[in-house]
């Protein structure tokens, strides 16, 4: 009888501990309600302008001024918006809005869920991509991107920097977006990897530079120091856009700013 009670107490304590850990994990990435207002206004403007096509969703130079302002305000938040996007992904059931959200996630935080998924339309894969992403997010994997990428990803760069970079080779890093930045910095501290640097460029939204770089990495940012300087400058200039991301902010700050 006593044994059973002890067991029950232990079970209750374990459940409580689990709940506390889950809550701590979420509170480190909490949603800012001011962002919700900005996000809702952007959505309202998007709904009012159904003629917009995918390539124009995040443009600030098309459509009525209300739309331009709403888009500008949304994008200006930067990666700090990520926890809100995650919460929206968690509850959104409309396929179009889910689709829009995974593109927004890529635009805001560089977390890309849809490249390298094989011969299926992104639209068709969207619910599954979201389900897998949420499970991974809730497991805390995004805050452990550094250690996970060390085993999940193998650098295809053998040191011959003249070769082209296969976009598919850096997909695993892009799945983590800005959460991969500490891994990127650490990797570049160890070796002069063009693949890792290409991932950094596209994660931080430098799509034009990325497109040129993967074609001919030997002509740009050749030295290890050039690559690291670029990343450190980005981190300094954009710190206010990721300073609400708790542990991630601390890690990037320690590695690239201080």
């Amino acid at each position, binding site marked *: 009888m006593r044994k059973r009670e002890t067991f029950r107490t232990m079970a209750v304590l374990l459940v409580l501990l689990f709940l506390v850990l889950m809550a701590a994990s979420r509170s480190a990435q909490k949603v800012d309600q001011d962002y919700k207002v900005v996000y809702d206004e952007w959505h309202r403007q998007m709904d009012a302008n*159904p*003629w917009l*096509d*995918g390539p124009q969703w995040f443009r600030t130079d098309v459509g009525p001024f209300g739309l331009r302002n709403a888009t500008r305000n949304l994008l200006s938040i930067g990666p700090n918006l990520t926890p809100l996007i995650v919460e929206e992904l968690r509850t959104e059931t409309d396929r*179009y809005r889910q689709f829009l959200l995974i593109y927004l996630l890529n635009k805001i935080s560089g977390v890309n869920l849809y490249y390298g998924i094989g011969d299926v339309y*992104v*639209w068709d894969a969207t619910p599954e991509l979201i389900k897998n992403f949420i499970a991974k997010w809730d497991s805390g994997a995004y805050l452990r991107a550094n250690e996970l990428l060390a085993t999940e990803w193998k650098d295809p760069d053998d040191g011959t920097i003249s070769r082209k970079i296969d976009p598919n080779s850096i997909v695993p890093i*892009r799945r983590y977006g800005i959460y991969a930045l500490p891994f990127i910095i650490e990797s570049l501290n160890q070796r002069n990897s063009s693949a890792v640097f290409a991932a950094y460029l596209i994660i931080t939204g430098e799509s034009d530079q990325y*497109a040129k770089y993967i074609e001919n990495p030997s002509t740009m940012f050749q030295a290890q120091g050039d690559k690291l300087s670029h990343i450190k400058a980005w981190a300094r200039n954009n710190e206010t856009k990721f300073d609400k991301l708790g542990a991630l902010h601390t890690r990037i700050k320690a590695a690239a700013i201080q």
Partner: protein
Amino acid sequence: MCSSAQRCQTCKLKDANPAYNCFAYTIGVTDRWVITDPDLNHDTNISVDELKTWYASKHVSGIAFYGKVNTFIEHVAFKAGGKGSGCSARSKLGGWIVLSHDVNQVQGSEYGTIQGGN
């Protein structure tokens, strides 16, 4: 969006339908959006070259590509199949209507100019 379409005898070909977009429309798909599927280098933009490769794989031709630059295509249209005099082209405007128009008429501040085609 029809402000420059006054010369068209026909403007709207199909009612607004949020289920698909212009890229989907050009490959005969009407139940999903297609955006970055043609994006071969994964830079989040669709270029003229990528679209040519993609349409070739779909055996689709007769498409005009619109954008401000040839590395960022924002809209595509069938060059033929429109209705009415001077409205030979047709395209879908995002999640909105299918429009019959002159191939040059949707050029402007929103969609840019014709950067290429196949």
